[in-house]
């Protein structure tokens, strides 16, 4: 456990440099620059959003083509009603809104699912203080079979951890 984001960031760098694998970091706010250090790849959420946006765009155009051109063309104020291309200017607003609707909600739902944050999900942060002002780094012995627990402890102390807790976790 650390009490400062910069100290944790430096410590993570030091530990990884010495061949230790950091399993997880729990923090009360995003620590910029941490991801590449502990080996987290860039998230693909933006791509997800783009895909959902494209889906929304096509659905909106397809729907309006069917409703207004194919199924029941209507003469409204003499506006063109026999081809999608001619009528598309007045379809732009709904197309845009529906694209945004799908992109935003599709991404938000994916985000919730991927994060495992859904109503009723249990929280897994090891210490309640990690949502307030403390930063926890999780290192498991499975991922670092060469290290002894004493060795790790002294290393962590060396890089400025304020509290070190050892836990036996049942292996599933």
């Amino acid at each position: 456990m650390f009490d400062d984001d910069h100290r944790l960031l430096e410590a993570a760098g030091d530990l990884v440099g010495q061949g230790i694998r950091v399993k997880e970091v729990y923090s009360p706010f995003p620590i910029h620059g941490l991801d590449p250090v502990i080996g987290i790849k860039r998230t693909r959420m933006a791509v997800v959003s783009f895909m959902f946006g494209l889906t929304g765009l096509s659905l909106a155009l397809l729907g309006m083509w069917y409703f207004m051109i194919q199924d029941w063309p209507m003469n409204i104020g003499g506006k063109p009603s026999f081809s999608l291309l001619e009528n598309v200017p007045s379809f732009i607003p709904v197309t845009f809104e529906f694209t945004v609707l799908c992109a935003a909600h599709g991404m938000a739902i994916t985000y919730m699912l991927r994060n495992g944050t859904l109503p009723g999900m249990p929280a897994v942060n090891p210490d309640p203080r990690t949502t307030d002002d403390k930063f926890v780094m999780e290192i498991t012995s499975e991922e670092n079979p060469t290290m002894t627990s004493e060795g790790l402890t002294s290393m962590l102390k060396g890089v400025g951890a304020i509290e070190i807790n050892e836990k036996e976790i049942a292996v599933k």
Partner: protein
Amino acid sequence: MHKEAAIREPLILGDKNYHDITADVVGPIENKAPKAWYVLITIAGLIALWGLGCVVYLISTGIGVWGLNKTVGWAWDITNFVWWVGIGHAGTLISAVLLLFRQKWRMAINRSAEAMTIFAVMMAALFPGIHMGRIWLAYWVLPLPNMFGSLWVNFNSPLLWDVFAISTYFSVSLVFWYIGLIPDFATIRDRMTNKTSKKIYGLLSFGWSGKAKQWTRFEEVSLVLAGLATPLVFSVHSIVSMDFATSVIPGWHTTIFPPYFVSGAVFSGFAMVLTLLLIMRKVMKLENYITIKHVEYMNIVIIVTGSIVGVAYITELFISWYSGVEYESYAFINRFSGPYFWAYWAMMTCNVVSPQLFWFKKIRTSLMATFALSIVVNIGMWFERFVIIVTSLHRDYVPSSWSMFYPTWVDIGIFIGTIGIFFTLFLLFARFFPVLALNELKTILKVSGEKYKREDH
């Protein structure tokens, strides 16, 4: 690490550390509410109930209880609708546009401004709904297969565009707001000692744990949502303005409407944010987070958007003369010298003249003056919509059908009622929700906190 110039004023005052931020924001939720809160919510709640009563009376009796007539078919209802939607715009502007521009001062105000957006859009959506008369047929606005040979809704109509715009805007704002709230609910969950509230906030926090990967996704999702919400917010009020601009009513049929409405919306929205926050920072002792500097920044936005609105008014006047269309010219002559001249001049004074006072640094950094002017601006913006809607309609092409609009008690009752509902919702928000974005504030503490800035230099 991100650096900030020493000359910039700190955004978080006082000797704060991460824990203090949590304590300052979550404290009011844990402690008992002050007496003033109970008094305020009772008043707001009573007004809200009165408004709901008026809505029930309206729906059970019919639209005839409003002051509308065959010439003036849109009046207070649509005025209120546009007014409320406009107020909503500031929240999205603060959270999305300022996020894209990396303006750090948004972090102290975005949460409550977004809450304001959501409540304001709810109030706005009420008006077209009850204006339908038979609100139980409201689902007819959706393109659903039906028994009339599947007669579809008209996608050429700006009124239908509005249905899509407002519902997208509302739901996307809600999601954006809630995604930001999740980590803060987790903070409250982990602090609560009371079992029931721990459970409730646990449920609200969706099991957020603050893992590194979660935070990466959180930041990316916030950025993409901001990118989506920015064009969205501009589109929403543009589409609202097209309800008018695409018609052939003199005074409405102008191409200037979309930008003019959007800046007017931001203008009134910031005024409402100021009205609410100036009270909130005082009552909840958030002076260290919502500082005079924040108020000044918001006032600068008000000068800019207020001036754009002023230019738009004058452009409209000029074009009505320059166009040479006599109906168009008459619409504007009638606006400033006809029977509703007082509404026009109230609008001009409140929206064009009063925000110019903010050029004086003394005035824009004075809390009392800001509070007073923010209310003046809100009144002015209500009059703007009233002027646009009613004065354009009440004297149309045929003088024999000219008439006046007088509001009935139901018109007034519903409008006042929505203000009551809005404040009730906002008070509940201020009591039970984290009113500042905790996780975001913590990221700027070391960059813009007063203590850290002092130590650096």
